[in-house]
């Protein structure tokens, strides 16, 4: 039995029955990291000693018999944009290379309380800006299914780690597809919850109005377990919502989808989509129909504007969110001494930020500047309202929407790195969910030339239980999600 390849559900049962210990499970994951991460490069920081200590504590808790959660003793990793006490949190940026937070993000403290075991921090595009993990200031992460391909981004390290058994699950963060897109490229399940469902306190903000923390797992069941542990109102995050957190797995038992109304948005199957990807997703839709779902076409007419408004709001908010990295209180500060404050700002930020980050700070600063605000930021916010209305209208007649995650499978490392616009367009099917205020689950639905293909199940605001049930029924009757790369 490869312990590192277990699902949470299976591992939790083994832990509770005493067949395995958390220390053994954690050690298996650490060994797997030692074995395959030199090739994949998913982790920026591995905290081996702390992980084994936490595992020992979890074993004591398991022996005591409580309090136990489905995550007690389960080793996991997190995208390196979540604040972890005493463990450096870099956002894969030079400017935070040596920044060690003094507090835990709310989701981290919730997982600590649940008894989960943190094994390390995962690579990402710098500050979440990118779709390939190539924009990490440290190194590019490789796709476990094909080392010459990207794992997707920006939560590329998290998706690659889960796919290759370096953590039973991961916490990622999705601003415009950053969980779903790499999940799809790496053949794992990724959930972008509704904005506000999971508190953001302690998440190093990219776009405060879009950022959603969510799980990357092997299947929908595991995603439900993690979501149940991290969701719910946090008084420290005023944008988190007080809607009660349901028992997600309680509605995920069926293999049938009788009476479930699914919509296929015609705009998501328009030009530019790889025929192999379209074929896999359409086959999956047929499968869902065979499970009893009613399928109909719907229209989301403002989809074509999603990329524009997404990038406008993103760059604007990011330019402000990244202003605190000024070399005064933490992180990189250049040079060590002897310059005035303006020169320190210029040198620190000049050296600390990568080219994509600088590009977006400049775009955002421009979009917010006097005389341009109305034409750009304000107009983008107005179109955003139209986008939300599109979803609202669709969800009047369907329970969920089915769409591809990405128009292509994982592309080659270096393929789009010099063409930011092409890179931006790889997010075309995932960005709308964030400004649209909806939730979306990405599940594996096939392969094309040996590379995983992903499908989105998009639900209305706070509709996580619904999309997870559809995902669970699909996975109960298919086996795409059980395939593992680099298996011995």
């Amino acid at each position, binding site marked *: 039995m490869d312990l590192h390849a277990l699902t949470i559900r299976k591992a939790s049962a083994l832990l509770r029955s005493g067949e395995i210990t958390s220390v053994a499970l954690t050690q298996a994951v650490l060994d797997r990291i030692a074995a395959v991460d030199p090739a994949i490069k998913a982790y920026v920081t591995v905290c081996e000693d702390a992980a084994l200590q936490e595992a020992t504590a979890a074993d004591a808790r398991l022996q005591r018999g409580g309090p136990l959660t489905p995550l007690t003793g389960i080793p996991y990793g997190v995208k390196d944009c979540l604040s972890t006490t005493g463990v450096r949190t870099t956002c894969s940026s030079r400017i935070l290379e040596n920044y060690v937070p003094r*507090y835990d993000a709310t989701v981290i403290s919730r997982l600590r309380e649940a008894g989960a075991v943190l094994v390390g921090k995962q690579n990402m595009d710098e500050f979440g800006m990118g779709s390939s993990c190539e924009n990490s200031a440290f190194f590019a992460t490789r796709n476990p299914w094909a080392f010459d391909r990207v794992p997707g981004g920006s939560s590329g390290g998290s998706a690659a780690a889960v796919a290759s058994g370096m953590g039973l699950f991961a916490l990622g963060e999705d601003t415009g597809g950053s969980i779903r897109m790499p999940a799809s490229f790496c053949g794992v399940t990724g959930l972008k919850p509704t904005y506000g469902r999971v508190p*953001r306190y302690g998440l190093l903000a990219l776009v405060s109005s879009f950022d959603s923390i969510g799980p990357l797992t092997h299947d929908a069941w595991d995603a439900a377990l993690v979501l149940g542990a991290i969701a719910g109102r946090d008084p420290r995050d005023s944008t988190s919502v007080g809607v009660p957190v349901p028992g997600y797995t309680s509605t995920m038992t069926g293999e049938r989808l009788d009476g479930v109304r699914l919509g296929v948005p015609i705009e998501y199957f328009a030009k530019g989509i790889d025929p192999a990807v379209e074929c896999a997703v359409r086959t999956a839709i047929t499968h869902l129909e065979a499970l009893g779902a009613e399928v109909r076409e719907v229209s989301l007419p403002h989809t074509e504007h999603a990329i524009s408004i997404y990038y406008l709001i993103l760059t604007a908010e990011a330019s402000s969110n990244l202003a605190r990295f000024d070399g005064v209180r933490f992180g990189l500060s250049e040079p060590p001494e002897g310059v005035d404050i303006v020169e320190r700002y210029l040198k620190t930020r000049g050296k600390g930020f990568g080219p994509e980050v600088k590009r977006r700070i400049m775009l955002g600063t421009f979009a917010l500047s006097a005389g341009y605000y109305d034409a750009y930021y304000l107009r983008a916010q107005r179109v955003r309202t139209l986008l939300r209305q599109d979803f609202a209208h669709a969800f009047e007649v369907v329970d969920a929407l089915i769409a591809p995650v990405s128009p292509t499978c994982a592309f080659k490392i270096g393929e789009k790195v010099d063409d930011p616009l092409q890179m931006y367009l790889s997010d075309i099917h995932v960005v709308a969910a964030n400004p649209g205020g909806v939730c979306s689950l990405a599940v594996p639905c096939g392969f094309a030339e040996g590379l995983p293909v992903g499908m989105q199940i998009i639900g209305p605001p706070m509709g996580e239980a619904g999309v997870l049930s559809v995902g669970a029924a699909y996975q109960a009757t298919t086996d795409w999600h059980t395939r593992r790369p680099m298996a011995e």
Partner: protein
Amino acid sequence: MAETEYEIVIGMEIHAELRTASKMFCGCPVVDTTVAEPNTAVCPVCGGLPGAMPVVNKLAVEQAMLVGLALNCQINASTSFARKNYFYPDLPKGYQISQYDDPIATNGWIDVQTEDGGNVRIGIRRAHMEEDTAKSFHYSAGGARGGAYTLIDFNRSGVPLLEIVSEPDMHSVAAAYAYGTKIREILRYLGVNSGDMEKGVLRFEANVSIRPRGTEALGTRTEIKNLNSFRALVRASEYEIARQIEVVEAGGTVVQETLGWDEARGVTVSQRSKEHAHDYRYFPEPDLPPLTIDGAWIEEVRQALPELPDAKYARFVGVYGLVENDARILVEDQALASYFEAAARSYGGNAASVSKWIVGELAYLMNRDGVALEAVRVTPESIASLVKLVDAGTVSLSSAKDVLATMFETGRAPEVIVKDNGLVQISDEEALSQIADQVLSDHPDEVVAFLGGRESLLQWFMGQVMRATRGRAQPQTVLGLLRGKLEARRR
């Protein structure tokens, strides 16, 4: 004189720290930054650490509403926060959370009294909430660290601030002064600000321009920042007006710019020209949803409004019949006004005499010894008793002043002091007559002089009687007796 050809136009921005227990967006305590150890009241939120998020302080919102209501503003049903972006080391997030499009309060006014006795209505454009910055301490080269350096105290970072923006309705420096005084008085009445300008909890900015008298269009304004005292407000505004007139008279034009006030040299100094003005790139704060303020909440806060200075003044003059000067002095200090009212209630009669004792003798003793009202040992009830003793003729006016001094020092009741020191006024004609006879027979020469026409000696005889009675003689009675006895000798 050239000045009379120009009309002065002044608008003011007043930054007032709100008096809450915790900061605007986090749970850190608000400490006295002039006393507390630097950087001891700081957390990830007010320290701007990555990932930290703001949470609005409800009490700060209610205090802002209270001020808005006191300034006759409309409290907006939906109010939102915005980011004001700029780089400065005392601004840890690189932006200040402020309000821009939907401030909490708009369109108010207050009336202020100028020195010439006039009443001027000043419009309040808006009042908005924001967080204070940290405090920078700049040190010049040559110290222990060699080169020049700056230290930052984040204790002040995130302290709730209310910025009150007036319309440009002040047309004299005196009006600006009166406006500042009035705002300070109202904030103190509301209990939302101590008014201690030397502690930096209240800061002024003056926007100053001039225009030819009789014209409507506003002249180009300059903005004088960080005026930390009334003296600075007056001096800087006067200087700036004179400077602008000089510029215009010399054929030049006033340039729009931000100025600082150099207290030592007594001049305004250019800090930023319009071309170099910051573009703050305001946009709605995505970490804070807009606040909805319903009518019920506004009413709840309105119930907490205390009687404001103008209303109290009108009541003191109208109901208690105080002279205007006494009323004004009492109203300036809410605690003193309450003290007076307690004394007036205890006294029961015409409170004007009570106010004279408080504004006169008591205030004199407090000033003399530097004693604050909280520490004064004379209770309102005992000062009322003292006035009653004077009214009843039990104690003379001059003795009463000594009694009050003793009350002030010992806290003892006036009746006890009067009794123990034998200060009861002698009104008994029999006794006074004997004393008067004794004085006249002791001074035969002066009696002859009086009878010879030196009538002024009557007061001198009076003084001798007072001396003999240690001031306790009832003066009118003595005067009558002396007159009678002297006239009798003339015959």
